[in-house]
């Protein structure tokens, strides 16, 4: 079922004598969630995402605005009449009931012509339990289940009455890292299998990126951007979205645009499109740095950092917001790690400009300045020629790599030889 939020606002009154000021948790949120879609509400804690979810479920009444399920206005409908399924952050399985009783509970509450016979209930419970793969746990109490099993039982309870809308409040936050990966795939699978319009709340960008069809990024009660996960990452609407998504986080710099050239720390790094001269905030994704000896941006090298599959270079730039600029290298570049100055070209597709005033994105076409010409030269040749060139490039790279390896080995040899000499000398000293 399609969910529509229209100018939804929730204001909590101030509590007690100490903090009288009211809190606007959700402010004028308008959003359409198409039928059958898995949507992640993403934002830091206190951004109003849970409040928004609770208003969709009916547990909280909006201060103003409307909520539609399909064409039906459900704004004033109590939660028991909305027909939504919900999974709570700590699952809220009734501790005194077995898993079977827990899953059956929503069915026992059905009234009128929706009432089911005991046999029908049993079938529905088993069907829901089968969907989440907990058929063998039905006789147990919630306290006898692991976190992941409780989670699945909670999903079964939410699904058993075949709701049109499924709501998940931080569904993975109580699970350990390994189980989290597994369960989020599970949620995706169940959602695809049932086709229920699903809204889930999370503060974990990986979670949101990996399973949602659409991500809604929220901050201080307002929607910042609604897009597909990849689009949100590749094309952030503002500085907040760019900063919030991505691990490691985006690198921010103070920059200036002068005569359609972008300067960072007075070094020209990229060409811009038609833009007036101004101060800007430049965001560069860690993978947007291309290590080159003649790179446009020259940073002071700190050290390299190897973590599993990635190699990063940590460097320092006077215009950067943070003391460390982190760039992730592709495999090819690892062999060229510099010692004092790390020079980078910036990948224009991984570089974003933001306004210094409101953090909004300044959209313009960024291009690499100087190497533009020789790249075009290369493209002018025939297909075969290009192939040939590439082949040679690759060959040279391989040879270069081998040479580097040799140098490394030679250095190692020298070092060992020196060490051996020193040892020998020490031995003589002792004798003398």
């Amino acid at each position, binding site marked *: 079922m399609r969910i529509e939020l229209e100018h939804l606002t929730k204001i909590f009154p101030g509590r007690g004598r100490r903090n009288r000021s009211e809190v606007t948790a959700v402010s004028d949120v308008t959003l359409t969630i198409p039928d059958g879609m898995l949507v992640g509400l993403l934002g830091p804690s206190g951004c109003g995402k849970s409040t928004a979810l609770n208003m969709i479920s009916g547990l909280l009444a909006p201060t103003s605005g409307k909520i539609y399920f399909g064409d039906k206005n459900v704004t004033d409908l109590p*939660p028991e009449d909305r027909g939504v399924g919900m999974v709570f952050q700590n699952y809220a399985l*009734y501790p005194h009931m077995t898993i079977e009783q827990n899953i059956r509970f929503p069915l026992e509450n*059905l009234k009128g012509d929706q009432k089911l016979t005991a046999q029908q209930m049993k079938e529905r419970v088993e069907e829901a339990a089968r969907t989440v793969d907990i058929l063998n746990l039905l006789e147990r109490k919630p306290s006898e289940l692991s976190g992941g099993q409780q989670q699945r039982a909670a999903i079964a309870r939410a699904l058993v*009455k075949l709701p049109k809308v499924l709501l998940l409040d931080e569904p993975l936050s109580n699970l350990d890292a390994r189980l989290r990966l597994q369960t989020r795939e599970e949620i995706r699978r169940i959602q695809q299998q049932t086709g229920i319009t699903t809204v889930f709340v999370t503060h974990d960008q990986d979670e949101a990126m990996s399973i949602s069809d659409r991500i809604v990024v929220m901050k201080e009660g307002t929607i910042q951007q609604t897009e597909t996960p990849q689009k949100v990452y590749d094309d952030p609407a503002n500085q907040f979205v760019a900063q919030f998504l991505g691990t490691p986080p985006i690198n921010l710099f103070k920059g200036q645009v002068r005569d359609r050239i972008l300067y960072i720390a007075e070094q020209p790094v990229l060409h811009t499109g038609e833009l007036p001269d101004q101060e800007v905030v430049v965001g560069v994704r860690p993978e947007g740095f291309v290590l080159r000896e003649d790179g446009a941006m020259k940073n002071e090298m700190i050290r390299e950092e190897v973590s599993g599959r990635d190699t990063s270079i940590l460097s320092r730039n006077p215009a950067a917001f943070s003391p460390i600029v982190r760039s992730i290298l592709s495999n090819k570049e690892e062999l060229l790690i510099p010692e004092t100055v790390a020079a980078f070209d910036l990948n224009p597709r991984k570089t974003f400009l933001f306004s210094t005033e409101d953090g909004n994105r300044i959209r313009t076409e960024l291009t690499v300045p100087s190497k533009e010409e020789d790249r075009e030269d290369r493209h002018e040749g025939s297909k075969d020629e290009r192939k040939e060139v590439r082949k040679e490039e690759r060959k040279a790279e391989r040879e270069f790599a081998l040479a580097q390896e040799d140098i490394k080995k030679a250095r190692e040899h020298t070092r060992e030889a020196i060490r051996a000499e020193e040892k020998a000398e020490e031995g003589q000293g002792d004798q003398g």
Partner: protein
Amino acid sequence: MKRSGLKAFLYLLPALIFLAVFLVYPLIDVLIYSFEEGYSSAAQSFSGIGWYNFDYVLHDPYFTQALINTFILVLITVPVSTGFALLIAFALTRITKLRSLFETVFFLPYVTNTLAVGMVFMVLFKTTPYSEGFVNMLMGMVGLGPVDFIEGPYWAKMFVLCFYTIWIVLPFKILILTSALASVNPQYAQAARIDGASSWRIFTKITLPLISPSVFYLIITGFIGAFKAYSDAVALFGTSLNSAGMNTLVGYVFDMLYREGGGYPSYASAAAILLFLIILTITVINLLYSRKHVHYS
């Protein structure tokens, strides 16, 4: 015995000695007395051993009266007071305005002096040369005749006794239940609402089972407390409970020991043993029932 075990035992010794001297020994002594026929406390002698004391007590009309009174008191006050307490505690958790004021009001009887409570009940129920009591005044307004609640018919006296007992035990039960309700995670009720449950079903199927340990505790202590009732009856009807027909089991034991035709420790012991057996039976039944219906997290 291991050294550490011996040490622990030594630490426990003072408490064990006190318990043995002041609790275990008297208990055994009561059991012995109850089988000694014709015991005289002056001569410290008895004529034989057997079931006569129990036979006598069970055929004593005063004992039968006390037994009936006690059972009526227990069967009325325990469910009614627990139910009322549940209702009030639940209402208290639902209101937000003036909540602490109401909590204080409901708890006041617990800290009020017994004599002051007695005075209030005098004003409410006692017929004096000047007035017929506040309750009679109210009853008169709706056209019901005056009833002497203190020296009048049996049901009127029983009503006052039950009323008094409930009023006395209510605050403590409200206190326990309010804290039990407050400790129930509100998320369960939210989940139940999402699951489509009505308020009544949320209360009976979710909330009540979750606070069942507290309710069960109140029922067990309520039963035991009501079986041991005595002072309340004295406060209302004076010390001649037998003649007022309002005696309780503990009152009967006390009377056998000290009052009017007192000086019969053997009969008193037999009655005390009977009371003990009744309380034991009821508590065992309670415990067996609780295994099925009380949920301990």
